[in-house]
């Protein structure tokens, strides 16, 4: 369904062949399946944890899992962002907000 890619651009087709720079496909696939299942479970835990403080901690762990999954998806750039934002910055913001809210409830 894609338009024909003529001339110089055509060579870049997906390869199944293993290059010296990749992990063994079978190993990689196992890793990805494992991580995907962990991520799905992690999302469920985060969404169903009802106590916000615990949820913020769960979110941090979920961010870490996502970061590792993105590494397995060959996206180191996104891994780094997810690590600094999802696993660190957002939980910090959430905990700060919760601290504010809890202080008032005392």
């Amino acid at each position, binding site marked *: *369904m*894609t*338009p024909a*890619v003529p001339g*110089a*651009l055509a*060579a*870049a*087709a*997906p390869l199944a062949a293993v290059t010296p720079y990749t992990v063994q496909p079978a190993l990689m696939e196992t890793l990805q399946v494992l991580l995907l299942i962990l991520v799905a479970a992690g999302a469920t835990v985060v969404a169903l944890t009802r106590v916000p403080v615990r949820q913020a901690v769960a979110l941090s762990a979920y961010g870490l899992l996502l970061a590792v999954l993105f590494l397995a998806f060959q*996206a*180191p*750039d996104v*891994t*780094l*962002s997810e690590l*600094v*934002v999802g696993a*660190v*910055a957002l939980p*910090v*913001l959430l*905990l*700060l*907000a919760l*601290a*504010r809210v809890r*202080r008032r409830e005392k």
Partner: protein
Amino acid sequence: MTPALRRGLFLVGIAGFLAFYLWGLTRLPGFGRYPGPYGFVINRIAVGETNATGVVSAVNFEYRGFDTVGEEFILFAAATGVATVLRHLRDEQEGGGSETVFGEPSSGTTDAVRLASLVFVGPVALFGWFLASHAQTSPSGGFQGGVVLATAFVLIYLAGQFLSFRRISPADLTDSVGSVGAAGFAAIGLTAVVLGFAYLYNFLPLGTVPGAVSSSGTIALISFFVGIEVAAAFILIVGELVEQTLLIRTAGRQS
């Protein structure tokens, strides 16, 4: 709606919606069979055209640089929004002035944590700087670098020194620095227009060695400005939140 009715309606809805969604998703080419052409074309031409070996950065700051302009201003608007919503209101005054968030003053943070935090400030700031200035070569860039840089400031706070956190990063100054970062990016694009090129055209010399620190023209420069803007925006947001937690007392209504 009662909770039970809402849950029922939601479960019916989500079942239908997910069935519909999967009907579409299972007609994708399948995982690992990305058909192209966009990404493959970029992979082939990016290094030659920009001398940046990190193709994602080349996409972010050059091929799809205008998305990143919008993205920076989303962050700018959000930081402005946080400052708007959490500004000092008439019925609030600063009070308390405790130095820590999690617990009573002086009992929350142990000396060990404070010391460890202070020790880490330098390396973390350095790492952030490194990330922001190596967008063109490695998996990094202004955004990640900026957040890490902001983390260094948060560490100062974690060391129990909120007042010094505010002294190092007063709201007005961070606001200005962040705005300069955002404006800097947009202005680099505009410089190209003044020089007679299209907006965001990479008008600087690309260098000769792919992947060198000074290579890739405007990509490195833009990444640097993005780093400044992101760091300032995060420091501003964290600062506002911390200030709310520590300093503001409300005389507002409570039901």
